[in-house]
């Protein structure tokens, strides 16, 4: 969306904040590091990446660009409607992303809605500033799409819970201080047998917590298995009541899917060494690629495919816009609940078209001197499956839409 549109409805105070953000970012945008930045926070592998990104988030937090909408008491800015402005300005400026993506998108809103006053005061600030990195313990080897099938067990002993179990797909666990954990306290009921906790990771390593990196099909690490063996967690770290784990998890997922009112602080995610995220990237690639001896951008087949992506991209952009105009939305959840599904499938199609444009050059990977744009396209394509699988596969998303929005019978 053009910047002018975004500005058009700012209040005077918001307009002033926007000016402030713009100026601050221009003066503080960090230099490109000497090492490769991954395509998203979920692939942060090395300490040098972490240190660089954590410092950047902290700097933004200190400048008031992170957590604007959160109450001041919990370390936020206390100004509703300001985070969106900061996000827009950060995204325009193509700065690096915020590393603490799980904490910002899931941990903080979940704690805000379900945590005790003590927990809110203790944890939210560290999430916003990025000083404490968070991870999420939902998926298990036997419970992927079927989240409520979680078997990690929390047994109450006096004032503490003893946690035993095995979580997978836990991005950032190798750097995390804390985890939001969905666990089972009872086998009597699938849903009401679940309870939700904050659990320590870093401080408990070797003392009931083991973090083991999983390797993605791209060869990158960044997500992990986490194994709990008799980890003791005080009852004060429980979120909401015993047996309310599924309700709390729904809050987490609603925020993850961008379908909740609270705006997640975000730097736009475009500041890594990433390509394969927009039509413009495709056009640039097509111009520099040959197909039958001509620039691929002059090939009618490639043109048509790029235009298809362009229409899709514009459709998603206009969906975002329309979702905020209630009179043009029959069902308020219809567009927001599509976001994760359509956004991830869009990136998959887009990155695959990148491979088609590259042709045989799509074989060339990171580190190859002749790889177009450093081999980022096959990387983006492979990583796109993380998008269509994690946090509710595309198949599950279609169930959700068919059931919650269109009201058809549950498929399971």
């Amino acid at each position, binding site marked *: 969306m*053009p910047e*002018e*549109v*975004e500005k*058009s*409805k700012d209040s005077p105070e918001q307009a002033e904040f926007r000016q402030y953000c713009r100026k601050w970012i221009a003066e503080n945008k960090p230099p490109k590091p000497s090492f490769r930045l991954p395509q998203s926070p979920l692939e942060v592998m090395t300490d040098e990446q972490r240190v660089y990104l954590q410092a950047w988030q902290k700097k933004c937090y200190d400048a008031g660009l992170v957590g604007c909408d959160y109450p001041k008491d919990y370390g936020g800015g206390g100004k509703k409607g300001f985070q969106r402005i900061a996000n827009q300005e950060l995204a325009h400026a193509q700065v690096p992303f915020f590393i603490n993506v799980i904490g910002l998108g899931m941990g903080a809103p979940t704690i805000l809605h379900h945590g005790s006053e003590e927990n809110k005061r203790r944890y939210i600030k560290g999430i916003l500033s990025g000083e404490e990195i968070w991870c999420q313990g939902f998926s298990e080897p036997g419970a992927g799409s079927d989240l409520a099938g979680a078997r990690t067990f929390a047994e109450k002993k006096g004032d503490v819970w003893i946690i035993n179990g095995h979580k997978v797909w836990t991005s950032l666990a190798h750097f995390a201080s804390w985890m939001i954990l969905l666990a089972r306290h009872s086998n009597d009921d699938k849903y009401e047998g679940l309870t939700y906790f904050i659990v320590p990771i870093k401080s408990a390593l070797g003392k009931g917590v083991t973090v083991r990196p999983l390797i993605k099909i791209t060869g990158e690490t960044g997500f992990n298995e986490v194994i709990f063996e008799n980890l003791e967690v005080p009852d004060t770290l429980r979120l909401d009541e015993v047996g309310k784990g599924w309700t709390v998890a729904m809050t987490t997922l609603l925020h993850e899917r961008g379908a909740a009112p609270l705006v997640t602080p975000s730097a736009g995610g475009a500041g890594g060494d990433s390509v394969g995220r927009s*039509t413009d990237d495709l*056009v640039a690639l*097509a111009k520099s690629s040959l197909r039958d001896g001509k620039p691929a*951008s002059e090939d*009618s087949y*490639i*043109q*048509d495919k*790029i*235009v*298809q992506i*362009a*229409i*899709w991209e*514009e*459709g*998603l952009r*206009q*969906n975002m*816009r*329309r979702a*905020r*105009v209630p*009179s*043009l939305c029959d069902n308020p959840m*219809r*567009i927001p609940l*599509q976001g994760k*599904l*359509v956004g991830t499938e869009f990136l998959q199609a887009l990155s695959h078209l990148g491979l088609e444009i590259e042709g045989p050059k799509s074989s060339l990977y990171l580190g190859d001197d002749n790889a177009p744009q450093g081999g980022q396209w096959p990387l983006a394509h492979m990583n796109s499956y993380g998008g269509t699988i994690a946090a509710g596969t595309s*198949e599950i998303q*279609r*169930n959700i*839409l*068919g*059931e919650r*929005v*269109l*009201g*058809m*019978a*549950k*498929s399971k």
Partner: protein
Amino acid sequence: MAQPKDFGFGSEEQMIRASAKKFLDEHCNVEKLRALVAGDPRPERENKAAWDETLWNKCVELGWTQLAVPEAAGGAGMKMVAIAALAEEIGRHAFPSPILSTFFATFVLRECGTDAAKAALGKITEGAPMTLAITNAGGSWNALDTDVEAKGDKLSGTASFVQDARKVKFFVVSARSGKDVGLYLVPADGKGVSIKADRIVDLTRDQARVEFKDVAATALAPAGQGGKALSKALPSILTTLAADLVGGAEWALQTTVQYAKVREQFGHPIGFFQAVKHPLVNAMIAIDQAKSLVYNAACAIDTEPEEAEKFARMAKAAASDAASFASDRAVQLHGGIGFTWECDVHIFFKRNKHGQFLFGDAPQQRRKLAPMIVR
């Protein structure tokens, strides 16, 4: 020029849509529609140009014909987003009416900038239905391809694929003189005008070849200016058609979803089965993007005209595909009953197919978009 965040869709536009919905729910609900258009199933039937002329008068009373007419020409000068919303309701009801054709004629007339065009807009404001007669026998909407020739103020030749030809009072005709194309107004009952109805698949429209034999015509745009007026009107035409398709697609989606909730097979409502559920979700996704693109295009016409053609073509491409897919799945997922004449689905299926190809289907729009996007 920047677009407003809310597409400029304000209270006035909401009222127009709400009143259209109320009107159409009452007068063109699917029972009345079926009774009106689906009486004669024979495949070789003649096209009846079925419509309810009394409803036309009501549309005029509701002010629909004035909506797109500029205030300077005595109309209401409403935004395109209002027209789009109205067209969406029309599509959702598959309303058999020359109102869309009349809008198209309005869009062209308001680009002509002549007194004759202003007078013609006055006729529309007063309630005269009109349609464009600008397509040649090959189905080309390119102004220069017209099969009609002008000699002075006399027209000869044939316009093809003329929509609602038998329902209108006037034709807006494109005609060549030498290498120039002008636009002309011709009364439907004018001397030398003969209308040969096409036998078409769509039950909610009529279509014809209109032959002009030395017909007296009023020049609307001077020779050489006709093509320009048509291209300036094109984004509005495409956006309105796209809105109609989005409405028709939404009908197909909702009707099929309802059926999937009540039809049981193997002990479950068929919506239980992902082979039913997921295609309907895909249809919804396609419709939502198309709808968002429609309002974006309409808003661009209102506020950002330099982007209007691009956005309108995107909207028509997306809406054509969404309507085609939603209608296709509506027939398929209704199963046996969906293949019968007694089920309403085919009425929308056929209307959506017709609209899909008017002024170019998705691949044709994409072809035109390519140089705007792959630059």
